[in-house]
């Protein structure tokens, strides 16, 4: 059969367009239990699906098990998230299970040393100490600190034990350190947490604006989808708005090098440009938006027991337009260091009616002393232009951890929360929780507990005397670390740590409990795009390791809360999920049934009548939108279903470079290592790739300081210091006057240097800005 060139191109166009249609829009009542055929010819190799253990992308993985061991992984071609692609960490997953020093037995500290114990001894001790602490000092004296790497059941069991049992709201998770500003940004703007869009937007947008987000390293599989979009659509642009050059920059069409904190001014300047050039969507604004102004000069959370309550007041559109007038392009240039003409180019992308825009961000905007504000301000741009709730036109807050959404945010393992966006301060919410849990409503404490930074401050002061830390490593990850490590080591503190490997956090523990991880237990994770995914247990955990959820249930029962945990030993995972699901039904957070998740490659909630929801708040896709409406932010009840455009100012950070400490310090991650490195540093090829932390310095700054590449220097702040090797021309290149240090290395604790300021609304610390100096090592 012969084709003309014209016919050939027409066929290509049709095939490419067909392939671009969203594959995730599926009727899950049909199920999707088919696994792709394994490439391996080994008949003993059994494959099963699971979400990746690492980041918030939620890639689908096929796990190959032979002779009781995970021996292989492959990308799951049927999973619409990654369509068979994995990153280097994903391909390295088997290695995280088999490090030589894996914890396998409970340990109790005696005379300064951790000694092996039985489960009964350890669990009885934990229960007794927690019970004694509550009886002597009250429920506020105990705490649970968990993780965005908790499976859903881990978080739900911890939440129920504390909030329905003990009557304490001191349940927090490390997602407070990564996603809290995203949460408060969503809730203050839309009335509900989590994105309205989904990954399908990657194949639809014309422009991707990355706000301080090194996506090429931190979400590489999603970035590959952006690159593929760009490859097939030559007009697509990637804009990298960042405080340092990264691998992402090398793919960008436009790199805008901005001063730290100046994103607040930039976003306002873009809003002003949209309004002044009359490119706002009048119809959308008039029907779907209200304007509000909150308090300003709101502090930085540096004082113990810092407290803040916003006082929003209404504004008109004209008042808001007047408010942003001082954010001229020239003012934004002065604050950011980006030429006004380049800011205008960025503003044009948002303002142009025909350019579909996806804004993307992660820690650059969330780990920010005004994190809630900058989240609000980026939403403002999408709301002003109506570029929201439409395929290819959405803001998308990327998540760092595999279940910061699914567990922490959705289950509600935060000091003020209950499941499904409910809060402890609302009497109706407490009533609903009490009914589902079968407890008197008075059992649920209406007073929020300590947020994470305040929790560790309370531990330091002695207001918290017993804390259980699960699946996270705060003795590496807490900012201003020296204070919090000292606090945890004080006498009369009882610290329990559930972990898989020894870490600096297990070093301060009185009891260490060995945890089963990932496919060593059944579980659910929830990713960035609201996709909840299930996996079955595939291999036995090593030694006596047991899942965190099992440990929590055992302690809760020993404390006298057996009635709250009546589940079977083999069925608790399913029973907990089905109980938790009851919170979500009819709320717009609806989860599907257990069987649906077993069958599917995840489902995006709300899942109603077996159908997932790729796009929220839009009638075409979301069953919760009221009849007759095209778009409705139905969770924002106080505004009649309208989103809020917030007037938020530029305010400087609490600590800026000065003569004594002349550099900005930014911390972050690298592709090869996951967070504090407790898993990835035990995988030889990842460890060899990046064996230790380092400090990136601009070559011109190094030359002025007389520093050579590879030299060891001391990075010092007002709080602490750490020695690091210098990298002048590595993967990342900071601006002049800035340095960057990754935080994965427990032997180079950069968080001894960082500042524990936080966003007063979200309580999320700012790891991206403090002032340091660089000291050359003196010759001996």
């Amino acid at each position, binding site marked *: 059969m012969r084709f*003309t*060139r*014209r016919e050939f*191109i*027409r066929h*290509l*166009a*049709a*095939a*490419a*367009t*067909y*392939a*671009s*249609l969203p594959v995730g829009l599926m009727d899950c009542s049909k199920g999707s239990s088919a696994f792709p055929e394994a490439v391996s010819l080994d008949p003993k190799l059994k494959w099963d699906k699971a979400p990746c253990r690492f980041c918030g992308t939620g890639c689908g993985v096929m796990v190959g098990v032979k002779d009781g061991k995970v021996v292989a992984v492959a990308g799951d071609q049927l999973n619409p998230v990654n369509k068979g692609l994995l990153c280097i960490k994903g391909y390295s997953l088997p290695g995280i299970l088999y490090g030589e020093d894996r914890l396998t037995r409970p340990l109790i500290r005696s005379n300064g040393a951790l000694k092996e114990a039985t489960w009964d001894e350890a669990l009885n001790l934990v229960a007794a100490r927690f019970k004694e602490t509550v009886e002597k000092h009250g429920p506020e004296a105990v705490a649970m600190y968990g993780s965005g790497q908790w499976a859903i059941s881990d978080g739900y069991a911890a939440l129920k034990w504390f909030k329905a049992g003990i009557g304490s709201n001191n349940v927090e998770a490390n997602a407070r350190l990564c996603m809290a500003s995203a949460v408060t940004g969503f809730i203050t703007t839309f009335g509900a947490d989590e994105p309205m869009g989904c990954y399908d937007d990657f*194949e*639809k947008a014309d422009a991707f604006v990355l706000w301080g987000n090194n996506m090429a390293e931190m979400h590489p599989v999603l970035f590959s989808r952006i690159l593929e979009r760009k490859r*097939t*659509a*030559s*007009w697509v642009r990637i804009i990298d708005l960042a405080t340092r050059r990264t691998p992402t920059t090398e793919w960008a069409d436009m790199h805008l090098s901005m001063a730290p904190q100046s994103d607040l001014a930039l976003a306002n300047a873009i809003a002003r440009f949209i309004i002044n050039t009359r490119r706002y969507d009048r119809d959308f604004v008039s029907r779907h938006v209200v304007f509000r102004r909150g308090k300003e000069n709101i502090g930085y959370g540096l004082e113990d027991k810092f407290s803040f309550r916003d006082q929003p007041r209404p504004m008109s559109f004209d008042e808001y337009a007047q408010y942003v007038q001082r954010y001229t392009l020239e003012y934004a240039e002065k604050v950011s260091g980006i030429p006004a003409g380049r800011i205008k180019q960025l503003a044009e992308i948002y303002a142009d009616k*025909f350019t*579909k825009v996806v804004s993307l961000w992660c820690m650059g905007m969330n780990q920010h002393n005004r994190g809630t504000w900058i989240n609000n301000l980026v939403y403002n741009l999408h709301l002003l232009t109506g570029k929201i709730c*439409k*395929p*290819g036109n959405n803001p998308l807050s990327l998540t760092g951890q595999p279940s910061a959404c699914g567990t922490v945010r959705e289950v509600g393992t935060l000091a003020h929360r209950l499941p499904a966006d409910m809060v402890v301060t609302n009497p109706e919410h407490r009533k609903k929780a009490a009914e589902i849990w079968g407890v008197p409503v008075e059992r649920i404490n209406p007073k929020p507990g300590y947020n994470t930074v305040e929790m560790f401050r309370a531990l330091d002061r002695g207001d918290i005397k017993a804390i259980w830390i699960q699946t996270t490593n705060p003795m590496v990850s807490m900012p201003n670390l020296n204070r919090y490590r000292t606090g945890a080591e004080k006498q009369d503190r009882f610290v329990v740590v559930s972990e898989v490997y020894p870490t600096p956090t297990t070093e301060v523990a009185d009891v260490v409990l060995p945890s089963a991880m990932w496919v060593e237990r059944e579980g659910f994770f929830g990713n960035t795009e609201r996709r909840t995914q299930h996996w079955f247990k595939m291999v036995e955990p090593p030694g006596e390791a047991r899942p965190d959820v099992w440990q929590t249930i055992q302690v809760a029962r020993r404390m006298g809360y057996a009635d709250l945990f009546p589940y079977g030993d083999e069925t608790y995972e399913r029973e907990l999920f089905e109980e938790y699901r009851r919170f979500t039904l009819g709320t717009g957070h609806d989860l599907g049934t257990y069987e649906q998740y077993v069958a599917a490659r995840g489902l995006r909630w709300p899942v109603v009548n077996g159908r997932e929801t790729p796009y929220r708040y839009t009638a*075409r896709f979301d069953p919760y939108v009221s009849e007759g409406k095209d778009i409705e932010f139905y969770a924002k009840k106080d505004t009649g279903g309208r989103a809020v455009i917030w007037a938020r100012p530029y305010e400087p950070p609490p600590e800026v470079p000065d003569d004594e400490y002349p550099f900005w310090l930014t911390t972050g991650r690298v592709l090869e290592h996951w967070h504090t490195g407790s898993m990835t540093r035990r995988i030889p090829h990842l460890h060899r790739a990046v064996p230790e932390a380092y400090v990136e310095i601009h070559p011109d700054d190094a030359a002025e300081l007389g520093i050579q590449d590879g030299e060891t220097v001391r990075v010092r702040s007002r709080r602490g210091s750490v020695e690091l090797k210098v990298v002048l021309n590595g993967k990342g290149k900071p601006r002049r006057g800035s340095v960057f240090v990754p935080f994965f290395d427990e032997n180079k604790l950069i968080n001894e240097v960082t500042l524990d300021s936080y966003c007063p609304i979200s309580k999320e610390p700012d790891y991206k800005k403090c002032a340091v100096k660089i000291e050359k090592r003196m010759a001996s």
Partner: protein
Amino acid sequence: MPISGIAVMAAEGQAESVKQAIEAQPGMDVVSQVGDYLVVVLEAPSPAACKAGFERILALPGVASAEVAYYDEQDVRQG
């Protein structure tokens, strides 16, 4: 003569009317339909005309969204 592949999403229940409206446009063919999604091939005499054709699709009643999934502007007159 540029050739585009365009994925069009019709509002619920309007795929048929959208399909007819697109096929009435010069240079446009609906080559496939998947639920409310239509796969459209657009040929136009110039890039500007191609863009104008895309904007006409966006403006049609019943079109919830449209995006260009493929675009080629090499000379295809030689067969």
